[in-house]
């Protein structure tokens, strides 16, 4: 029997699924008024929603929203000098370009993410920002489109994938150097502890990026057969996870310089970054360990049996599989870390939350506390929610992918 015959046989007995459309009244009855208890719940929650929505609406209409546009630059990039703002835009363009490139080369989820980013920038450009800002915003879409085109063209080429990974990795140090400046080439920008929301983003990205290799090593160490290595790694992970981040920041602000020789005096921001890396590494290690535990013993045995040594087995066989499993967990950790960067305010770094104090201290903007906190909440919510949405999608695609 050939394949077509088989397929025909399978098709013959297949029926279409029953229609699942329900009339509106029946839907209401099933979902909202199925019993008297449910009816009461429905009425109570409707009342609750109404109160909240109307309360919010009334407040939102009276609120002095002008505080946000008037201070937008301060909130987002803090004291970053206006004449150098193009550097920030350049970094944004670089990321948009790389996103576009990846989506052109892979499609799927990446494509949707970059399309959304481009669309958002276009929509923002329609809003009544100053004309200059609108132009910059449109540039994001252009950069993403350019990246997309190049990525699409380079799709089949072998070195293209390597180039893509390399440029993603390199984009982090390049962006940081670009924002900060290098002596002699780009003027160094002073007061980098006062860059507003940009510091939250930098903190989270640096924290995750640097903690990744450390976390992987710690996870491997914790699963090592060598007792001394396992003990030290476990102790580090558990101690860090046992204390709050704020106590580590406190330590970084007052004790770190005591532990280093007098000639080394890292500034506050560096110390904050080191702390968040050390903190994040312990959690990263636990996530990676979860992935390592999911790899069956047979994979190690098969690798040893074909003659791979321990290092090669780990690098070629175990880590690629384990890390793929933990991508969603790492995205989750990134979100948590991103939110934790608001604690930088505790050691006098002016990130988004802390910089609002300077606005509230301004007589002109007295009493705009609600507006500012709601703005911060909304900014974080949109970014965190969309990231967790993407991570959930990744989780779904991982389930059916190559595994």
């Amino acid at each position, binding site marked *: 029997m050939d394949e077509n015959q088989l397929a025909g046989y399978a098709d013959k007995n297949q029926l279409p699924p029953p229609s699942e459309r329900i009339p509106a009244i029946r839907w209401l009855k099933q*979902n*909202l008024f*199925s019993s008297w208890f*449910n009816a009461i*719940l*429905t009425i109570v*929650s*409707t009342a*609750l*929603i109404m109160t909240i929505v109307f309360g919010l609406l009334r407040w939102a209409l009276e609120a002095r929203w002008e505080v946000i546009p008037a201070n937008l630059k301060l909130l987002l990039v803090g004291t970053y000098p206006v004449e150098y703002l193009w550097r920030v835009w350049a970094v944004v363009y670089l990321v948009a370009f790389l996103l576009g490139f990846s989506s052109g080369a892979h499609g799927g989820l990446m494509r949707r993410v970059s399309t959304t980013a481009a669309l958002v920038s276009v929509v923002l450009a329609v809003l009544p920002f100053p004309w200059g800002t609108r132009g910059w915003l449109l540039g994001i879409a252009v950069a993403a489109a350019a990246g997309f085109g190049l990525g699409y063209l380079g799709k089949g080429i072998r070195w293209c994938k390597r180039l893509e990974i390399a440029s993603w990795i390199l984009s982090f140090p390049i962006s940081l150097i670009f924002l900060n400046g290098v002596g002699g080439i780009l003027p160094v920008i002073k007061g980098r502890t006062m860059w507003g929301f940009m510091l939250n983003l930098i903190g989270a990205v640096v924290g995750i990026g640097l903690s990744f290799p450390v976390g992987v090593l710690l996870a491997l160490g914790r699963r090592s*057969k*060598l*007792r*001394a*290595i396992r003990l*030290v790694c476990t102790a580090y992970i*558990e*101690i860090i*996870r*046992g*204390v*709050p981040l*704020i*106590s580590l920041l*406190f*330590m970084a602000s*007052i*004790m770190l*310089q*005591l*532990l*280093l*020789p*007098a000639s080394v005096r890292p500034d506050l921001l560096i110390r904050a970054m080191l702390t968040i890396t050390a903190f994040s590494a312990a959690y990263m290690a636990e996530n990676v360990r979860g992935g390592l535990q999911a790899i069956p013993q047979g994979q190690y045995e098969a690798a040893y049996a074909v003659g791979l040594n321990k290092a090669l087995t780990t690098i070629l066989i175990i880590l690629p599989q384990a890390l793929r499993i933990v991508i969603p967990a790492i995205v989750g950790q990134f*979100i948590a870390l991103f*939110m*934790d960067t*608001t*604690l930088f*305010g*505790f050691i006098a770094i002016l990130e988004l*939350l802390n910089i609002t104090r300077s606005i509230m201290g301004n007589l002109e903007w007295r*009493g705009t*506390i*609600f507006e500012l*906190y709601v703005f*911060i*909440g909304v900014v*974080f*919510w949109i970014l*965190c*929610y969309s990231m*967790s949405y993407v991570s959930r999608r990744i989780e779904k695609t991982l389930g059916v992918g190559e595994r």
Partner: protein
Amino acid sequence: MSNKVSSSHSVPFWRDVRVLRVIGQVLFLVIIAAGILWLLNNLQVNLRACGLRISFNFLKNTAGFPISEGLRYNPTDVHGYAFWVGIVNTIRISLIGIVLTTIIGTVVGIARLSSNWLVKKLAGLYVEVVRNIPLLVQLFFWYFAVMLTALPMVKNSIGLPGSIYLTRRGVYLPWITPAESFGTWAWYIIGGLVVAIAVYVFRRIQLKRAERPGFPIIWAGTILILILGAGWFLTPGNPLALTIPVLKRFNFEGGLWLSTSFTSLLVGLSVYTGAFIAEIVRAGILAVSRGQTEAARAVGLKKAHVLRLVVLPQALRVIIPPLASQYLNLTKNSSLAILIGYYDLMNVGTTIFNQTGRAVEMILLIMASYLTMSLLTSLLMNYYNRRMKLVER
């Protein structure tokens, strides 16, 4: 031909797996130890430069700063005691927060599985909103925006049914305080507990001997309530007094006062952690498949017994480990108290540091306090997990 093979005696040590393992570990330890020694040496040099020596003697000096809530405390008390007040305050906010957040989380978690569409969506909205906004933003919102801005002054306080008053100075609640005759009644409490425990143990053994099912806790509970009730009537005067907050000239008097910081911290932590607990509860309930419930019903157990004997134990096994880590998170997050002025151990610790300049000592004390709490929790969890594993087999 000869059958001579390379035997184990001739293995050079750099190729012997066992020797390599030992060398690897020793090398690793030496590097770690060298790193730590280097840091400690730097510390010593730096401290000597400031003319300091590590010593905990400063804990015996007078603190001199006020702490507005918690244990009875005077600025004339010593630093060590002040720190202890901070620890107790951390434990206080954590325990009350854990109770509150468990209630919120359970209700929302069940609501997320409700057959009512609106309730389900509302619960989902709560979880998604709360989880994706930084805790500190939420705490600031409760403290600066709600408590200190939106709430009225004491004179125009918002009264809720049951004599609860919300004001800018905090929340006032009716509270029960022991009266003069409490001492007499206390004997009934002790006696009641002893009898109840005795009954519980006795009944338990009896049931086991008879090999019959039953719930001895109901017996014990009933007896305890009976004894306490009898004691209440036999004691002259009321052993407990209800005090209700009453507005006097400048402030409320009587009742229980929850400070602004405490209230915002409590609400913020509970609401935030509750969203995570809701997800845990939901996953736990979903993990007990419908088949289990049906099987139990088919055996003929009553509905209440199904819940008590089949669903709950299995759901709890899924729920409790992540729940414990959320409780620990809440405790650790309570350290944000320092940013909204509640005197927890972090806050008192930094205040002592500011007064004495004892950085190393205070950091050690703070870290050790949190680590002790974490360690106790994980010991408890290990014990629980081991017991659960035994049950599984």
